[in-house]
């Protein structure tokens, strides 16, 4: 068969298969991300059927997937929203970082991955999946709940933390020497500050630059500028994804809304490819050895996220049931944990085991998150009833 024909058949089979997996996932009420990862694991090295001829395409499209993931994350918020969110929720945000990054950091240090591995694993266990959480909150009809703004503002804080964390991570991963790493961190922090200032003061000019009433022109301009900025950022050692994120923040108003609407399907397509490629590059045989760690981290970080949400909701005067819901809602980890792991593994600075642990961890958390959000109410009700019917101490 012709090479192109084989590539098209393989690609078609991959996309179609992902479509079926995605449909199945939402039907049983979980996120499709773990299924995409499993799909990737099944086909990659040591998997069932090796794919040939589409590596180049899948590699590029997974890169585009990350860029679109972060571009759309940036588009979600205006710089002003980020700033007010930051002011309102920074205490909860700090509690979130301390409680949820620590387990990852400890695990990495115990496994002997050094400070760089610790920085990466801290990020993997810290960052909740805003994609999964927003979808689950919508599906469960909790957008009108009082604790929902608390959950969302924690997510906003996390996303802002990502804007600072990702450049630092990529700088540290790239920095061979301590001084080199430090310089790179300095450069990337300066870049973020400049972008945030531009976004706050001149966001409408950036928006006007990419805006167009014609959908085709608009799509080309938005996508083009995102890839350009991402490419330049990656050339400057500030990861491509971060560049796209910052561009997303700088675009605001109706331009951002239109861009989100237009790019969402593209993101879903390429991001699915990103998860598959990540799974492809992870050897399934490397997962069983780290499975114990993954389960332990899953248990610990589920509890720490619930505690974070509980604490944040209590500060806003939310009742017990609402606190439990807020905590459970935050449990899901997903796309960004995988983005962090893939940046880390791609740099070669840390053991490939990290990819295996991150995969296993996200597999667990992407399933556990939506389930936790669903079962928290009946569980909490049962618990309160049990306490209610217990005989009062004499």
């Amino acid at each position: 068969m012709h090479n192109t024909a084989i590539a098209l058949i393989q690609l078609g089979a991959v996309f179609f298969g992902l479509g079926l997996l995605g449909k199945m996932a939402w039907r049983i009420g979980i996120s499709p991300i773990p299924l995409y990862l499993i799909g990737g694991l099944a086909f990659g090295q040591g998997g069932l059927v090796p794919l040939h001829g589409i590596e180049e395409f899948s590699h590029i499209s997974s890169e585009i997937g990350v860029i679109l993931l972060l571009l759309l994350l940036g588009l979600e918020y205006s710089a002003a929203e980020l700033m007010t969110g930051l002011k309102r929720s920074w205490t909860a945000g700090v509690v979130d970082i301390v409680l949820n990054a620590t387990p990852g950091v400890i695990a990495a240090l115990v496994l002997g991955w050094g400070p760089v591995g610790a920085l990466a694993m801290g990020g993997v266990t810290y960052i909740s999946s805003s994609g999964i959480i927003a979808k689950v909150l919508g599906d469960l009809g909790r957008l009108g709940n009082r604790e929902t703004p608390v959950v969302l503002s924690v997510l906003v804080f996390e996303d802002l933390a990502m804007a600072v964390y990702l450049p630092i991570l990529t700088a540290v991963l790239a920095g061979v020497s301590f001084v080199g790493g430090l310089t790179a961190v300095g450069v990337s922090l300066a870049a973020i500050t400049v972008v945030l200032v531009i976004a706050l003061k001149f966001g409408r000019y950036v928006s006007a630059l990419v805006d167009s009433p014609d959908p085709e022109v608009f799509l080309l301009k938005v996508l083009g500028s995102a890839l350009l900025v991402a490419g330049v950022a990656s050339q400057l050692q500030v990861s491509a994804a971060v560049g796209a994120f910052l561009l997303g923040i700088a675009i605001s108003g109706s331009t951002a809304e239109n861009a989100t609407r237009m790019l969402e399907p593209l993101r879903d397509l390429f991001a699915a490819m990103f998860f598959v490629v990540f799974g492809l590059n992870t050897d399934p045989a490397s997962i069983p050895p780290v499975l114990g760690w993954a389960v332990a981290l899953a248990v610990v970080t589920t509890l720490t996220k619930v505690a974070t949400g509980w604490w944040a909701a209590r500060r806003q005067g939310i009742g017990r049931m609402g606190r439990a819901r807020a905590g459970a809602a935050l449990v899901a980890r997903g796309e960004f944990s995988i983005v962090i792991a893939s940046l880390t593994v791609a740099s070669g600075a840390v053991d490939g085991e990290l990819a295996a642990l991150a995969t296993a961890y996200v597999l667990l958390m992407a399933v556990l998150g939506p389930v936790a959000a669903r079962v928290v109410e009946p569980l909490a009700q049962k618990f309160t009833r049990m306490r209610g019917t217990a005989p009062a101490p004499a």
Partner: protein
Amino acid sequence: MNVEVTPLPGIGTRQDFMIRAGRRVGVVTHRDGKFELIVSHQDDPDGCAASIALTPSEASTLAGLLGSPQLVAHLEEQHREVAGISTKQFPIVPGSRFDGSPLAETELRTRTGASIVAVVRAGSVHPSPRPDFVFAGGDLVVVVGTSDGLTAAAELLGGG
């Protein structure tokens, strides 16, 4: 009424208020223009017992249904100064005599002296309907007149 407006970053805004029954009632407005009608739990005002997605046209219909009695009250207020004149609303029952026939066919003014000042249909108000306005089942006809005129109008519109 103290309507609380809460931004939902990345999603839109929530606007709600406490009703006397101790529940929160409100609307979540999505950025893309979708609406959700929200009603909180009786025993857990933080959570929502119902969260109902509405299209823009459904939302405006619901708003009209809730708002039209106020319109009638407003019309009533306007005519109160004129002694002996009041305002009433009558439904056009689906399948009744005037369901599907034009306003002129009722000959309401000639026969009762009362006049039709507005028709409320599916929550939206059609003020000063013309004689060729065609009634449909479920319309609310707002009539102004003397009490005798209104009684006659009730008989005419309802008794068909």
